[in-house]
Structure formats: C-alpha cells, structure tokens
C-alpha cells in the first residue's frame, strides 16, 4: 500500500499523495516549484500597484475601504506564497533579489496601466476572475505548502471578483459617460486577461511535466475556454460588448469560439516592453530600498528589548 509513509516520490505522485517539505523530491520538481510559486508571489505584490493608483481617488468611502481591503489581501497572498517557496530551501531575500534584478517574472497583466476608475472594476472582475480560474485547481497541487496557501488565497479571492463586477455594474447602468468608461475598460482588459492563462497548450513547454507532477491539473487552453464561457454570460448582464468580432457560440462544442490572441504582444510584454514594466519594477525596488532603514531599526529595537529583559532577569 502506498501512503504518506511508504512509497517514494513517483509512487506518491501516482497515488495523489501530497509531497511535504522534508520528503525526498527530484531537483527539477523543487526548482519548478520555486520558480512557479515565487512568480506567483511576485504577481500578488506587483498586482497591488495598478490598484494602489486609485486608492486616494476612489469615488466614495465605501469603495475606498473595499479597495484597501482587497489590496491588503493581495499583500497577504504574496506572503503566503513566499512562505511556501521558502519551505523549499530558498530565502525571502533571494526571491526578492530575483524580482528586483528582473531575473524572475510576474504576471504580465500588471504591466498595463489603470487609467480610469472603471479599471478597478475591470481588474477585479476580469483579472481576479481569471486568477481564481487558475488558482482553484492549484488547491489540489501535489506540494502541500503550495496547495494550503492556495486554499487560503481562494477563500479570500471570492470577494475581489464580486467587488469588481459591482463597480462595472454600477457604471454600466449609469450615465452614458459612465457606461462608455466601463466599455472602454472592458476593451482594454479583455485580451490581456485571456493572455493570463499562458501560451496555447501546443506551445507551452512546461505544461506536460507540470501535469505529470500534478502541480498543474487543467491545461491553459481548457482554463481559458472556461473563463470565456462564464465571462461572456456576465458581460451580457452588464449590457457591454466583448471586444472580439469573432466571438460566437458554437452549439456543437457547447463553448464559445473566440478570436486569435495577439501572442506577439504577449511576448513583448513578458520580455519587458509593456507599457508599465519599468514603472512597476522601479516602484518595487524603491519600496524595498526605502524600507531598508525600517528593517534595520526593527531588528536593532528587538535586540535592545531582549537585552533589557535579560538585564532585568539577571538583576
């Protein structure tokens, strides 16, 4: 019988038994996980930036409180994921170095600008919506700490998409100008949201191995199709138009057919040439550098407090 005690890595994977930090695992599995989990963590904290742009300009106190709560959640998601990566033997500082030096990637969706308030709606609805679609199957990923982090994240994500949809709904049912603003945001975020699922299965080099290791459970194209199917229906409720002239219901497959994705744009943004790549990285680096004295002071303060306590005990 293969269980958590008996059996080696391959047997456990085959029997869907979770791998834990101190279990033996192939080097490539460890490397793949560190890369994927840290990229994911970077995406959470870089993803705070486009929304941070609108905190001081939220149209009401309620919207502002909600936006702040959402952004705070994303910071927490970053923490859960960095912690999961750290169980694989890499340090937090090493991971942040990789982000700051440009060696590590993050989701390229966050290299697009958030130009209007409607973008807060479109991001929550489409970007968080796509993220949830990606993340739900990861709750069953074979690596325990990653799967557990994803469970916590998915629980918190559900309000993110709803608050975004609510913003879109209010705008779409508002004045002509508001409706136009909502449509414009949908036009700009639709295609980048579809790109969030990654290259087509036929072009995705990592998919096959990740599926074998049960890190990934559903392929990029399957997830993307699922996202299109549910989101198109939601768009109808909003009374907005999906910016895709090839979008059509296919009764035979039971899914929507949709137009070709501009992969040249996708790779261009991944390579660093998107509208905000530079700005995002600069903001992250500045936050890290400006926080240095705080990190040092907190450590010095902790040591002082400890010394004072020890002196008190000795006296």
């Amino acid at each position: 019988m293969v269980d958590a005690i008996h059996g080696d890595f391959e047997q456990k994977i085959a029997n869907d038994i979770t791998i834990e930090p101190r279990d033996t695992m192939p080097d490539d599995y460890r490397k793949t996980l560190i890369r994927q989990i840290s990229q994911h963590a970077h995406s959470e904290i870089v993803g705070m930036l486009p929304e941070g742009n609108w905190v001081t300009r939220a149209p009401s106190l309620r919207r502002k409180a909600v936006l702040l709560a959402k952004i705070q959640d994303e910071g927490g998601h970053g923490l859960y994921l960095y912690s999961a990566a750290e169980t694989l033997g890499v340090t937090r500082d090493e991971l942040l170095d990789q982000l700051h030096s440009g060696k590590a990637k993050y989701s390229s969706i966050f290299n697009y600008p958030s130009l209007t308030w409607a973008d807060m709606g479109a991001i929550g609805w489409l970007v968080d919506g796509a993220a949830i679609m990606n993340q739900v199957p990861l709750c069953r990923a074979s690596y325990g700490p990653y799967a557990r982090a994803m469970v916590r994240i998915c629980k918190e994500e559900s309000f993110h998409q709803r608050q975004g949809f609510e913003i879109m709904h209010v705008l779409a049912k508002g004045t002509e100008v508001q409706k136009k603003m909502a449509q414009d945001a949908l036009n700009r975020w639709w295609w980048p949201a579809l790109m969030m699922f990654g290259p087509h299965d036929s072009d995705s080099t990592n998919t096959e191995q990740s599926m074998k290791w049960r890190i990934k459970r559903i392929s990029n194209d399957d997830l993307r199709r699922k996202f299109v199917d549910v989101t198109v229906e939601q768009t109808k409720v909003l009374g907005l138009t999906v910016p895709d002239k090839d979008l059509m219901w296919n009764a035979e497959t039971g899914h929507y057919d949709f137009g070709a994705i501009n992969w040249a744009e996708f790779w261009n943004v991944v390579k660093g040439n998107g509208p905000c790549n530079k700005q995002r990285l600069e903001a992250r680096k500045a936050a890290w550098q400006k926080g240095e004295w705080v990190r040092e002071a907190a450590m010095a303060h902790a040591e002082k407090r400890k010394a004072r306590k020890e002196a008190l005990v000795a006296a």
Partner: protein
Amino acid sequence: MANETNKLEWPLWEVFIRSKAGLDHKHAGSLHAADAQMAIENARDVYTRRMEGISIWVVESKNIFASDPKEAESLYDPANDKIYRHPTFYNLPDEVKYM
C-alpha cells in the same frame, strides 16, 4: 547589493491559531518578524483579518524539531500490527445493542 542582505533578514516564525474557544491551536502559516511581539502583531494582520482566530501562538521556526520523514517507517510501522487497540477488533454478540 545581491545576497549580502540575507544576514539582515528577520527571523522566520511559525504561526498557530485557535479559531474558536474549545479548539486546538492549528498551524496557519509562517512569517518574518524581528521578535515575538512583532510576529504576533503581523500574524494578527495577515491571518486573522476575517475573524479566523481568538488566540495566536508564534514559535521561531528554528526552534521546531521535526521527525525525519525517512524514519517514518520505523517510527510508525510498529503501530500497524496492533489493531487490537481499535474497538472494531472485537466481536460482540448481536444481542448487545449499545456499547
């Protein structure tokens, strides 16, 4: 700048949370903090924002000693052949309705 920053990294802490009165503290995750007090404050901020807890324990990760998974077989196997420790091992006459 690269890795010389590592020596400044705040220590890692494991966070345990009691979700409601009467339940055990359960491992929730980990975080970095300069000392125990800060670890508790940070744990409150990240792990109990939605009323997930009423009590927090933090332990510096380096102070946790864990069993070696490679020794799992010798550690836990001896329990395997002692099924008489389970109530289902015993046959009761049908007349006994409740026990």
